[in-house]
């Protein structure tokens, strides 16, 4: 039997079939749905962690204790977890540990398009890369086997087009896949505990003080040699003979595009992309007249193939930048004279207005960014839906780098000395992820920075995952941190909580914090408008009273538009938050519920 699954669903299914017992990770597009699917399988302890490094360490501990363990994250999440990745390669993991890195060529939802295959070489561990959902399932299972056989974590590298594309997956009798809809989370008590298991005491292997680590480094190098020999026989690497002179070495989703663009070529499809099977590559190269390497992003395979002394071309034709598509690949291949181009009647390019993502109607973030825009503060931001506050017309975020960067950057701006009031904004999930160390640093060094925690009580952008402030875990109801109490216990004496859609109160409080020359925190709390299904009667604009001043348009709300000689509110989109009424200088906005001014 087969079922159509996304790559992420297939990884969860493969991990379940492989008998994974503990799974952790942090939400990040395009990796999030792996754990969201896995939580519905029985007998697995699945948890969201506060960040990728924490999740990684949880998985390492589980693998030390003899369980198969999985940890999932997006590509930049592996940067957060990199310190742990390196020690785990030294110690090894008897229980089998698979680390999923979901890379994002094309940056659909990321700040960079780093190629995490490099981590294989850098941290010295095997990397496997599937090309469709069936392989995502099989390679996950095989990755656990490799991990246990070689006592090493295995990196399972996917990209957005593998994670979020769907294709048929063979299912196994007696272990049917379950979808998110089949079972409500939290029902049965997981049975992942291995009773009677005694944790192994083996300090020379697991305590990485220099004396022990020096003994482990030769093990790491010898293990890589053995893995390279294994790669020669692994079924993950295979040759697909073709009819022509051209040979293509490829991996991941690029393999699928290359099969379409070079239908007559022979293929060396690498499922294990590190370490490489040197002999297999030499044999393949000798069997064709010309060798091409087709890989998204960096010339990771190409450079290593050239180091083998094998002549190959790749990045001289194909781009280092952006994701590949069949047409991009065909264009480049046609320009290089490798294939004919498509002869198509032209489509006149039209200048069409764009449709960028926007803060939702009723979103609390809008209230904070409007106030910060009014006050002219210098704002260091962070990663989340609220990064949309950088876009016009709000334009109230001036730096965004990575998870947790904003508070430290604001601290540094203030220390360098600027005439601006300096603010950091951080979402609730980002705060628990990596906002707490820089916040303690602000307090410790007495930096007069105002930190605004945009608390919508959920990890919204990745699709509403629970976080430590949500009163829930991935399984359902659970503990919630009392944020304000924690901040006061840390030592902040100026902590205020506002409803960011209460314009006057928010303006008053934020102003007071900006005028205070000491570290302070504003908690702007409003449940996510999408999740809370907040809906009140819509507002209207009285045409006679509206002077077309455009103040309401500065909120950047899709429900408000300029229509004819004045403003109008779309009744279907408006959720009745009332922020436009609060900012209208003419008093022209009123609620259909009759509670307006």
């Amino acid at each position, binding site marked *: 039997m087969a079922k159509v699954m996304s790559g992420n669903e297939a990884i969860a299914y493969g991990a379940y079939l492989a008998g994974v017992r503990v799974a952790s990770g942090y939400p990040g597009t*395009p990796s999030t749905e792996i754990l969201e699917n896995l939580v519905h399988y029985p007998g697995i302890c699945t948890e969201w962690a506060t960040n990728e490094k924490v999740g990684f360490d949880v998985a390492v501990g589980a693998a030390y204790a003899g369980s198969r363990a999985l940890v999932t994250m997006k590509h930049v999440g592996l940067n957060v977890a990199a310190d742990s990745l390196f020690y785990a390669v030294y110690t090894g993991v008897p229980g089998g540990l698979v680390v999923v890195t979901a890379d994002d060529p094309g940056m659909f939802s990321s700040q960079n398009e780093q190629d995490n295959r490099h981590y294989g070489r850098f941290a010295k561990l095997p990397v496997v890369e599937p090309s469709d959902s069936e392989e995502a399932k099989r390679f996950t299972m095989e990755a656990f086997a490799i991990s246990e056989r070689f006592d090493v974590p295995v990196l399972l590298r996917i990209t957005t087009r593998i994670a*979020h594309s769907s*294709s*048929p997956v063979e299912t196994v009798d007696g272990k049917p896949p379950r979808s998110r809809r089949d079972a409500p989370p939290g029902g049965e008590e997981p049975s992942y505990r291995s009773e009677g298991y005694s944790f192994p005491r083996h300090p020379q292997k697991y305590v990485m003080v220099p004396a022990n680590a020096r003994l482990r480094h030769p093990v790491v190098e010898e293990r890589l040699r053995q893995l390279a020999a294994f790669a020669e026989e692994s079924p993950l690497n295979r040759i697909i003979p073709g009819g022509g002179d051209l040979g293509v070495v490829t991996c991941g*989703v690029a393999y699928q595009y290359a*099969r379409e663009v070079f239908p007559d070529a022979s293929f060396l499809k690498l499922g294990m992309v590190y370490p490489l099977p040197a002999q297999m590559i030499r044999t393949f190269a000798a069997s064709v007249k010309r060798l091409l390497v087709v890989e998204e992003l960096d010339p990771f395979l190409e450079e290593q193939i050239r180091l083998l002394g094998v002549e190959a071309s790749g990045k001289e034709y194909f781009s280092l930048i952006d994701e590949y598509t069949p047409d991009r690949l065909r264009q480049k291949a046609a320009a290089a004279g490798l294939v004919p181009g498509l002869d198509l009647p032209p489509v006149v390019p*039209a200048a069409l*207005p*764009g449709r960028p993502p926007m803060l939702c109607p009723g979103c609390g973030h809008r209230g904070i960014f409007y106030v910060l825009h009014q006050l002219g503060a210098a704002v260091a931001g962070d990663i989340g839906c609220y990064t949309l506050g950088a876009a016009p017309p709000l334009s109230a975020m001036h730096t965004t780098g990575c998870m947790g960067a904003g508070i430290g950057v604001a601290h540094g701006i203030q220390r360098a000395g600027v005439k601006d009031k300096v603010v950091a904004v951080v979402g609730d999930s980002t705060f628990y992820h990596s906002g707490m160390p820089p916040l303690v640093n602000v307090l410790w060094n007495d930096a007069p920075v105002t930190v605004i925690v945009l608390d919508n009580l959920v990890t919204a952008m990745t699709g509403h995952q629970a976080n430590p402030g949500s009163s829930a875990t991935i399984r359902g109801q659970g503990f919630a941190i009392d944020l304000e109490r924690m901040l006061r216990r840390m030592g902040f004496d100026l902590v205020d909580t506002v409803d960011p859609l209460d314009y006057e109160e928010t303006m008053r409080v934020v102003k007071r914090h900006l005028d205070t020359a000491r570290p302070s925190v504003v908690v702007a709390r409003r449940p996510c408008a999408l999740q809370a299904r907040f809906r009140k009667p819509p507002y209207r604009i009285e045409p006679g009273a509206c002077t077309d001043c455009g103040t309401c*348009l500065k909120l950047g709300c899709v429900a408000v538009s300029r229509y004819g000689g004045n403003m109008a509110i779309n009744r279907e989109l408006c959720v009745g938050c009332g922020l436009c009424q609060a900012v209208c200088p003419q008093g022209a906005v009123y609620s259909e519920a009759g509670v307006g001014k």
Partner: protein
Amino acid sequence: MNRPEKIDFILAGVGGQGTILASDILTGVGFRSGFDVKKSEVHGMSQRGGSVESQVRWGREVFSPLVEKGRADFLVGFEMLEAARWPAYLAPGGVALVNRYRIFPPAVNTGQADYPPEGDIDRLIAARARLVWWIDASDAATALGHPAVAGVVLLGALSRFLPVAEDIWQEVVAELVPPRAVELNRRAFAAGRALDCPGS
């Protein structure tokens, strides 16, 4: 109808319009009728009211999860402006089905840009398509009981061109929509399938 070697679809709309459900149905129908299938879509930032697109491929053996530019057999536009972004993906002689429905983007809301007129969009798509079928799917869906079933009305219309029995469509629709919406979606599909097609 003869069974073609491959059929490629592009579904384009605005976040929240149901393009993902429609592409799940289309993928399920292709798979159940014996095709190899692949589907690709993008999650994340694009869901916050931005442009969204899904690509679905049916074939004897499908490699790429993405449709190649100039090779799509069908373009299904859930919103007029979003349909206008994709004609270059249509194969010469392809078919476009466009919901006659406008959602103004921010630049139009603020008066910085104009929403393109229907005639311009029609000409743009007709440069590639042999048929641009304008369908009042959102109006039909609202008349049936809920604007959210516009996508299933469009699938009903699309089904006219495809070598698949109606009961397979109805089975897959019933499996993928919420249980209490099955009847409404059945009627939406039937309404779309019963529309007068200008090309037939």
